[in-house]
């Protein structure tokens, strides 16, 4: 579920729906909180987060298979 929308913060402005190139929000209705119809098509570039006018209303959850690998210290 890559983009996560906080329904309490989202103003339903539709900017993320408009700008997502992969159109993961396909089928969202104008004036309503966007639905993530195609989560597996998210490419995790943060573009929706850049363009969202309400801080914290949208964020990316990185899928488990994509977790970075690092050396713990």
């Amino acid at each position, binding site marked *: 579920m890559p983009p996560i929308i906080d329904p309490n913060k989202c103003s339903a402005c539709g900017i993320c729906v*408009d*700008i*997502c*190139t*992969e*159109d993961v929000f*396909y*089928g969202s209705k104008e004036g309503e909180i966007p639905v993530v*119809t*195609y989560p*597996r*098509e*998210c*490419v*995790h*570039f*943060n*573009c929706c*987060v*850049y*363009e969202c006018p309400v801080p914290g209303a949208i*964020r*990316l959850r*990185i*899928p488990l*298979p*994509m*977790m*970075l*690998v*690092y*050396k*713990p*210290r």
Partner: protein
Amino acid sequence: MEEELVKADVLCVGGGIAGLMAAIRASELGAKVIIAEKGNALHSGRGRAGNDHFETYIPEVHGIDREAFIEELLRTAKGEVLLSRDIFHAQFAKAFDIVKLWDSWGIPMKYKGQWEFAGHSFPGRAMTHIKYGGQMQKKVLIKQALDRGAEIMNRVMVVDLLRDGDSIIGAIGAHTREDKVIVFQAKGVILGTGKCSRLYPSLTPGWMFNDPNGGIQTGDGRAMAYRAGAELQNVELPERHIGPKYFTKFGQATWVGVLKDPQGKPVGTFASKPDRKHGDMIMEVNKLVAEQYTKSGKGPVYMDCTEMTDEDYEYMMHWMVHEGNVALLNHMKDEGIDIRKNPIEFATYPMRLGGQIVANAKAETSLKGLYAAGDEAFGDISAAATFGWIGGENAANYAQEVEATDVERARAKIEERKELIDQLRGREGGPDWEETNIALQQVMYDYAGSVRNEALLEQGLSNLHRLKEKAYTVMVARNPHELGRCLEVLNLLDIGELVFLMSSDRKETRGLHVRPDYPFTNPLLNQFHVVQNIHGKPVIQWREIGR
């Protein structure tokens, strides 16, 4: 199926860096320009979330003439490449002008008031890339295009070019949010459609959109150029990249660290301490190093930034943001990963399509009225910007010279594509694009992957033909969005087929094209390997590169 007719002098296919620069230049020369973008141009293409380095030649900084700069570039950072020298001359004659233009438009091309050269260059040799603040570059370029009168049509995927005689006269596109096709009548068409993802499996096979190019650059330009009869070259020579493991992103040169083995020994010989000017050039010299270490039991390898200074850290973070890697930084924060303490594992990324649409230094392809720029022709941000500009200029000039041709002359092609779209949309059930795409990746990985021979290629091509037949007869698009994905898969199938044919014809081992049945690189084949669709049949030939 509803059909809309749109007329323009110049049609830019793809609203990435090349498409926008082409639109800007063609518009200011007076052409009526339309950009057709299958996503949204604000965040599409490889420059969608930013870039931080721009290859350029500045005479007063480099202190050598252009010829010497290009020779230095080919001797060091770029290595010998299968491109003619006049391409580099055209790029570096113009690139610095573009840098200054971008700066004047509001893309910060300087750092602390200076041209800041770093990355992609060896210590002690000519520096080739300036650092720049590209995070919001798309917004700036869109404004410039719109200010000059260009029009952007988002959510329109151009499916095929329309041809009359030897000339391209327009294109047909499918809307990806409503059931509608758009017929473009244009005197000049510029393909700026980017790289090609989803042909081979990603590093995370369950998540095929995890690709540093993004997930929807599917070689559309190459596929439609080929179908229309334009020449492609070297598509069987794959590329690979290196970067953070599993969260695949570009920007390897933005990391200020040293690539090391598990014992902390550098794997290369170019850096032993973090060096913000040069990074660790081992990753440019050998993208396979991470895979080789792992396969030979010496891995994993880590990008070790732990010895960086606080200033280096600030510097790197600044450029990671501009390179478009904010999501990666957020992920590290969420996971409690601190690059000052934790070495990050790097991996060699999977195979992806190489080669290009044949284009000359004027961005002209082998078909009249058809131009190609950006990753479809000569990649990287500087080349995309420069050849986009050059292509836009030449397309606008061409549009002034010729009369528009009525697209009705290509009515048969339009109807053929509409019928295909109706079939994909009309089926009740069947495999969707994703199932078909997974099957294609399987064929490519197993039969045209890291090792190829005649028997494998022959078997793989036969499998691919069966799959293609199914894609055309049973694949289903449940809505206009999935229609776009299906059309992408059909493009990938065409390109995959060419990879097989060209691989079979290249009877040598070269770079990542490994043929144990022809284990040596044949110096007589330091040529362009060109394929063209002539009356529905692929015709392959070798051509001298020239200078």
